[in-house]
């Protein structure tokens, strides 16, 4: 990553203003990053890397997007840069802090309720209270609050991952990728939403 050979960037920048280019949303990287993130939160028990479930609309999940001008790509840095530092990363301290908090919350509060079927993964990448009657009344309040906290964290993660990559408009795709990944990483017996219906993995 370091020691990238110096280049006359300023000159290059001056030469190539006002050009619009098409690049592709890096779905593979997003999925991989999402998988790492999700597995860290849910825990490392089993679950080898597996493809997203059949809900993936077109298999690859590649979405063509028109992005803002990136001069580095023009002068040949883009590809090398992209290989060494995938565009989808989750390295900022804020996101790592959220991830740690989510991991703690998942193990401390949410996991048993996924096991019991009270909670499920919604198709929007959030946690949904599926069957509140499976919980004691007092727990229902605590779980509702934990779910609200977790969903706030999730929204912030999806947003910040998009922004940290310089593409705030990717937020929805990133959310979709995560939604599929939560389901893919879910343990057997947990519930998830598909097309409005609940299914058990």
């Amino acid at each position, binding site marked *: *990553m*370091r*020691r*990238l*050979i*110096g280049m*006359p*960037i*300023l000159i290059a920048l001056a030469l190539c203003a006002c050009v619009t280019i098409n690049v592709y949303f890096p779905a593979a990287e997003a999925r991989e990053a999402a998988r790492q993130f999700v597995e860290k939160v849910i825990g490392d028990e089993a679950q080898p890397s597996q493809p997203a479930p059949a809900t993936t609309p077109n298999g690859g999940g590649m979405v063509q997007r028109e992005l803002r001008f990136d001069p580095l790509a023009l002068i040949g840095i883009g590809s090398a840069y992209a290989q060494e*530092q995938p565009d989808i*990363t989750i*390295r*900022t*301290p*804020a*996101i790592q*802090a*959220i991830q740690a908090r989510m991991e703690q919350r998942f193990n401390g509060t949410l996991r048993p309720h996924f096991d019991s079927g009270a909670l499920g993964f919604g198709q929007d990448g959030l946690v949904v209270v599926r*069957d*509140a*009657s*499976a*919980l*004691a*009344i*007092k727990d*229902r*309040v*605590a779980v*509702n*609050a*934990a779910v*609200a*906290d977790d969903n*706030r*964290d999730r*929204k*912030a993660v999806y*947003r*910040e991952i998009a*922004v*940290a*990559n*310089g593409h705030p408009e990717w937020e929805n795709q990133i959310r979709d990728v995560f939604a599929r990944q939560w389901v893919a990483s879910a343990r057997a017996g947990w519930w998830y939403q598909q097309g409005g219906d609940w299914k058990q993995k």
Partner: protein
Amino acid sequence: MPRRILALLLLALVVLPVQARTTTARIERVEASGVLLRDVVVRLRWPPGAASGELQVAAARIDAADFGYHFERVRWQCPLARTAQGHWRCEGPLRAGDHAPMRLALDLSSATTDAELARGAARITLQRTSAAPDATRLELSRVPLAWAQALVAQAWAAGRLTGGTLQGPVLIETPAARPLRVDARLVLSALALESQDGSIAVGDLGARLRVDYRQPTGAAALVAIDGTLDGGELLYGNTYVALAGAPVQVRLDLMQRAGGGWDVPRLSWDDGDALSLDGSAALAGDGALHRLDVAARSRRLDALPARYLSGWLGLAGLADLGLSGAAEAAVRTGAGGLATVEARFEGVSLRDPRERFRIEGLEGDLRYAREGSVDSELRWRRGQLYGLRFDAIRLPLRSDAGTLRLREPATLAMLGGQVSLEGFTLRPAQGDAGLRAGFGLGIDSLDLGALSKALGWPEFGGTLSGRIPSARYADERLDFDGGLSIQAFDGRIDVDALSMERPFGVAPTLSADLALHDLDLLRITEVFDFGSITGRLHGRIDGLRLVDWTATAFDAELHTERRRGTRQRISQRAVQDISSVGDASFVTSLQGRLIGLFDDFGYQSIGIACRLENEVCRMSGLHSAGNGFTIVEGAGVPKLQVVGFNRDVDWPTLLERLAAVAKGDVSPVVD
């Protein structure tokens, strides 16, 4: 009715020849007191000379439609005998369908009917007298509430009783021409019930209630409930009420609506100083609140979070919010959501446990109406926002067609200067639209020293002023038009394109573009303890993004510009600090070790740029120099040139090094 059947059977036994010891009566339909029995077979077997006979009663079906009870294949078998007082008495097992058997005892005389139904410790006794044939008196003793499930389902189809026992007298009146009436004084213990979807629930509730239920024929039912709740918990949607500790007086009048659901013309809840409510409401068939018109009052707001607000505060991420003072509010909701609010606060304080905000001494009124126009005024004594203290403010408000506005600008003393709030508007969430707010800000001479201290930055002098003609809050995003101007380091920093996301939520972010004009470099290096450099600094920090108050992205370019009368010198210590932070190596006309011989050097210009992205700072300087980039271009003799070679710098490492420099514990390697 049973008495008459029994009398007929006994008469038949007497009249019939002695050898015929068994009589049977078949009745297609028996109707009494709103209870319908079908295909009833009564068989009495009385051996000649015996003291008692054997009675068998069976009904194919029993319906008590008004109470929602239906039984099939009901059988009762018992020894029938005449007591010394001349009563007929029979006691034996009662079976219905596949239910567990119960024990039914019947005692008949010409004046009274007594019955007792029991299973385990649970017992219901029934009394009727021929003098008052329309009145049935029940006495319940440790009766499981589950037995009342059918009755509850009549009123609330989605309700499920899951636990608890009942005790107390119940009087049922079934006069022919008047409505059915049930008057009960019940003691409920450990009541637990639950709606089908789990959104409404009651757990472990104790209560002493007087229930008055009237069911006119062909008309809606009326219920009046009056009593005391003691202990237990209630959940209604996101509202969670924990009643432990103090009893609550309740009064509820209910009227069943024709199309399902209930009108609640009177609703009263008295929980002492914590909360009292009076009002009316309407509930839909599924228990959802249609309409609410209620006046609430709390003389001790500190009791509210634990007893009433924990559900909502948890959802809002404000669990453990500290509240104190007193407040009252009249709230009216209708089909379109919130219609009016009239609230009054007395000495209210709010404290976020995570110290994001604090308001003390909140007083005054807040009035909101979805239609029309009302005025009110709020004041507070002081507060704090993310460590920044502010003083008293007076907020004259007007609610106009559903939007709350400030009637005149409000000013607030803060950090030695003044902040004025202009044109504030707030529109509560309505339907699908979330809360929206807009305001203008005037900021006059805030003390940067106090600001930097409050935010835990190295302390530096200066003032912050500016005007933000309009700021908007919507969808958890706060956008500012206009800009701020910071007078600091004998120069000016302009802040533009300011916005915040999730200002009070998870990982609050702040974005801005900064332009630096003619800053005194010497003061900057002094504040940050970075050797000493004289000169004037200019530059830009574009696309600055702080997440959780930590920089995660920016595109910065800083350089010096020569100004008449300003010497441009850089101290030896500053050179070493730059080299240790920027991982630079010296290219000088002298040997590196000779640097130690000089206290400072003249320079022609200094320039450095960093584009932070993804925790990597891509650095450049004044211009390229071979494989590297020049950061300091020296002047005079010795001519100093500082050249950086690492263009992609790990940002956390860079920050560590900067922090180490500020602490003065670096010893740069000089080649």
